[in-house]
């Protein structure tokens, strides 16, 4: 067992699964010789060769669209998009094809692709390198959406994604890529999709977060008896875990980087408003990005919900 960061953990999941399953092929810009702009695929070209680690032209629509064709034929393609914003060019392929093909062909064709991409605020890269648009993918049917928060769960969740029979959008919090190291087993292991983890038990406040915000929420919880749920799979998310916790605590705070309006926090709040509202001792609070586009580097930290904002939300629901 080695101490790995998320980049290495993902690399390890890819490597193990590529060894186990010869149908797995990777494709994307700069993933081969360069090992990916974040070095996630480093070394894989050397092991698996250019037919399984495919450097593509600069064409996100084409990458995702051809992955769909590969998957239909029987491969297990894993597409890397360099940053979340660049997946927008491929949204039609994801929404109108990847997410629909099983349904529209009544199971005759399927689309077991994985689309990996870094997302979120925090590395002070250029414009449009810090998007948190996970809600787009979570809304459209037929697609699973996964966000790891640690090296350990990054490997386990990606392994599940790589074995899933349906399209999975795998969002990698770029802020965390190299900032946390944990023990990660060398061998493969799968963390089931659709199940949240209780990151920290607590009695007073249910906190739902994922990716980089999970760690902010955890830091913010000092002095509060907060139950922190690491959602991990955003679609379909673990409704029971949230509802059980809220029924116990009576208070819900959701923290995410994305702009508040229509973010995934809305769906979580709505679920509780529908199914556990009478357990609430205080209003739900979403601590989220403001109604604005993610700014460039100088202001990106200001956009991302700060620990003091989360603490204020905790205090507010406790005092209510």
């Amino acid at each position, binding site marked *: 067992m080695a101490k790995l960061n998320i980049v290495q953990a993902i690399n390890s999941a890819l490597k193990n699964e590529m060894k186990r399953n010869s149908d797995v092929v990777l494709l994307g810009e700069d993933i081969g010789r360069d090992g990916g702009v974040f070095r996630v695929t480093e070394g894989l070209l050397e092991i698996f060769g250019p037919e399984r680690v495919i450097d593509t*032209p600069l064409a996100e629509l084409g990458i995702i669209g051809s992955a769909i064709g590969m998957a239909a034929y029987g491969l297990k393609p894993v597409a890397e998009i360099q940053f979340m914003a660049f997946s927008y060019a491929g949204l039609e392929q994801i929404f109108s094809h990847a997410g629909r093909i099983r349904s*529209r062909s009544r199971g005759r064709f399927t689309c077991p692709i994985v689309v990996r991409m870094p997302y979120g605020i925090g590395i002070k890269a250029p414009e449009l390198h810090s998007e948190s648009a996970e809600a787009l993918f979570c809304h459209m049917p037929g697609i699973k959406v996964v966000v790891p928060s640690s090296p350990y769960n990054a490997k386990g969740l990606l392994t599940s994604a790589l074995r899933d029979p349906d399209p999975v959008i795998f969002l990698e919090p770029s802020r965390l890529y190299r900032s946390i190291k944990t023990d990660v087993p060398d061998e493969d292991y799968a963390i089931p999709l659709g199940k949240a983890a209780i990151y920290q038990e607590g009695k007073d406040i249910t906190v739902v977060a994922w990716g980089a915000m999970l760690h902010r929420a955890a830091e913010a919880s000092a002095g509060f008896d907060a139950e922190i749920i690491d959602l991990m799979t955003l679609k379909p998310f673990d409704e029971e875990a949230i509802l059980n916790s809220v029924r116990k605590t009576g208070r819900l705070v959701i923290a995410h980087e994305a702009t508040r309006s229509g973010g995934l926090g809305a769906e979580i709040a709505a679920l509780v408003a529908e199914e556990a509202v009478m357990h609430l001792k205080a209003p739900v609070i979403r601590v989220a990005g403001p109604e604005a586009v993610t700014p460039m580097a100088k202001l990106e930290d200001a956009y991302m919900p700060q620990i003091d904002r989360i603490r204020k939300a905790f205090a507010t629901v406790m005092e209510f």
Partner: protein
Amino acid sequence: MPISIIDEFKIRRLEVLDESGEADAELMPPFDGNEIKKIFERIILARTFNQRALSLQREGRLGTYASILGQEASQVGSAIAFEQSDWIFPSFRETGVLLALGYPAWQLFRYWSGDERGMSAPDGLNIFPMSVPVGSQIPHATGTAMAMKIRGAKSASAVYFGDGASSRGDFHEALNLAGVFKAPAVFLCQNNQWAISVPRHLQTAAKTIAQRAFGYGIEGIQVDGNDVFAVYRATKDALNRAKSGQGATLIECFTYRLDDHTTSDDSSRYRSAEEVEEWKKKEPLIRLRLFMKKKGLWTQAYEDGVAGNALSEIDKAISQAENYPPPDKADIIRFTNARLTLRQKKELKTLGWEK
């Protein structure tokens, strides 16, 4: 030399069977009489399906339908070039292709009546559901071709799309990728001169669509799309190139949409009856009949027989489709993913769709 010519391209056009029914001896594919009759019969079958579909639509028994009238040579001529292991990615105007490949007519009727079950190709037929977002299926063919190459299969993938589709970014990215990876793909542009109301010359200022191939380093050719032998030959050549590792080909089938865009369209709003009449004279069956007659393969009685068989086959398909039980509402949810989510299970219950 300060202004130098670094490369030159010639756009070729292939014709085999002319309008008088004369075939070029050198280019004529080596079909025997039976094979030629089979081609004729497939065209009649496609046309019969088409006519019946149009009338069913008028009677309210089918949804919006896209006629293939005039494009049968482009469709049947290309379809018969495939092998069983090839993969086909059709647009919504490929009835002739699908029928020629053995796609059950009753399934097609189901599709056009608005039933997903019609898109489930029988096992062994690698035909993807028809793509409705124009052009968006083109990258799939590139991907499948790349997969075939990775797997070392001696197969090819082919994708059908229109002149309108060739304006979409999907076309570009897909053909360029296919060029880079020397993917065994055949890009079959059905240039029927119109994209709803937009004529070819307003779709692009380029003289041909075939010439785009050069921009991707792949092969490109225009064929007379109303000439079933030329279409067959170009497709077969392209498939051979693909399967022998020489990469992809863009084939522009130069044909014409004789009917309205779909049953929701009224083409008299945007094109002249004279233009349509001119093209009617060039429709593929006329010259095929002339050719077959010269070869002693065609009589009116023969055609009547073929047409009669086709009609009864199609009518059988219609009643099979119409007598099939309606789709189960639960299927809306059931096929979203391989496994139902808890939420979906709840929904099935709340909606009363559970069995």
